[in-house]
């Protein structure tokens, strides 16, 4: 008997093993959804290890992503910063273009209302001293400009040309002391001469004391003198003072055009009458 087992030990073990495996399998067929002792032991033992392993795996992932994989981040950061700068520049340029477009549209609207031919010009310089008020524009006699031509902006009168060269002209602003424009109050038609005061304000001179002038009245060019066409906006009355004596009243005018930030102007090619 013992010799039989010794002789056929291997086949017997194999068959026994297969039987045990088959029995184990068949016994568990009825409880496939429940964990048996072996499964509970194995899974219960492995679970904490797996938990640590999965955390370690996440840690490794983080290490990989946060450190090892960041080799090119500096370059990418630099590139993104560069792109951000470019985008900011483009944004600023777009804003500038938008504002320029608005200004030029206003200027174009004004151009349509002026009957005489006009030349658009860009302001390229200011007066060198604080007490004279003049600007330099980038158009001159080559563009048909001559001394004494009216200069307008979208809101109204700027001044008139003086000292014209081939490719530039000086514009004597209406706020300069040497400037004088025949004007009238739009509402009451009271006439006078708008003289510059040198401090970004003007005064309406030679307006009779009895004339109806009120604060807020619009002042427009009267067309007398032959330089400015009739009805161009000059400014609005900021103050009216009537003394007890004298035949004229003192009228202060706030110009319609702020010359401090003027960038484009329109020169009307209107030949002044001598």
């Amino acid at each position: 008997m013992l010799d039989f087992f010794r002789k056929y030990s291997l086949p017997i073990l194999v068959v026994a093993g297969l039987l045990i495996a088959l029995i184990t399998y068949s016994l568990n067929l009825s409880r496939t959804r429940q964990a048996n002792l072996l499964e509970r032991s194995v899974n219960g033992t492995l679970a904490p290890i797996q938990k640590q392993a999965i955390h370690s795996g996440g840690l490794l992932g983080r290490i990989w992503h946060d450190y090892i994989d960041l080799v090119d981040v500096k370059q990418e950061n630099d590139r993104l910063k560069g792109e951000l700068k470019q985008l900011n520049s483009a944004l600023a340029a777009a804003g500038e273009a938008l504002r320029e477009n608005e200004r030029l549209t206003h200027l174009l609207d004004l151009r349509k209302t002026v009957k005489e031919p006009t030349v658009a010009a860009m302001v390229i310089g200011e007066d060198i001293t604080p007490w004279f008020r003049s600007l330099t524009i980038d158009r001159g006699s080559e563009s048909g400009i001559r001394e004494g031509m009216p200069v307008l902006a979208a809101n109204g009168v700027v001044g008139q040309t003086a000292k014209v060269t081939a490719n530039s002209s000086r514009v004597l602003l209406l706020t300069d002391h040497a400037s004088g424009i025949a004007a009238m109050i739009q509402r009451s038609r009271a006439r006078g001469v708008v003289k510059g005061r040198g401090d970004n304000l003007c005064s309406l001179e030679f307006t009779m004391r009895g004339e109806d002038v009120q604060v807020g009245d619009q002042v427009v060019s009267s067309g007398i003198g032959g330089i400015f066409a009739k009805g161009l906006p000059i400014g609005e009355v900021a103050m009216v003072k009537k003394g007890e004596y004298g035949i004229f009243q003192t009228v202060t005018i706030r110009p319609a055009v702020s010359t401090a930030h003027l960038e484009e102007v329109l020169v009307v090619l209107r030949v002044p009458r001598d």
Partner: protein
Amino acid sequence: MTGFLKGAGLVLVLVLVQTSVLPLYLTTLYKPDLLLILMVFLALRAPVSTSLPAAYGLGLLKDCLSGLYLGLNAFSFLIVYLVLKALSDRLYVQNALLLVLTVSLSTLATMLINTVLLTIFSEANGIFSSMLTAMLPHLLMNAFVASLVAVFPELGRVRAVK
């Protein structure tokens, strides 16, 4: 010739800065007079053969860029220059503080001469009040710029040449 070209380049830069760059950042009242400062500097430190025509030329240039009256600043620059030149031999012209002081006094003198000339020869009534309003800021700005000029290392070279 090189010196002339350098001088012309400097004047061009000053003019561009004053007429086209500074107005973008400074209000009208706070404009310095860079040409006046250059004139005072030349009057104190350069020989007559150079500084005399330069002073008149700078005045004319200023007239070309300001107001309507050609010759106004040329005249006042010349007067101020001659006074400064007459005094410069008796002054310690290397002193930086002196340049600030001289620029300040020259600013006042130029404004005074201009006012007198404008009052007598032009119809620009009320210019005096504008000048009076602008006087203090203009004076302070000129003094400030003169103090900056005094610390330029380039001045050392000018002294050495002289």
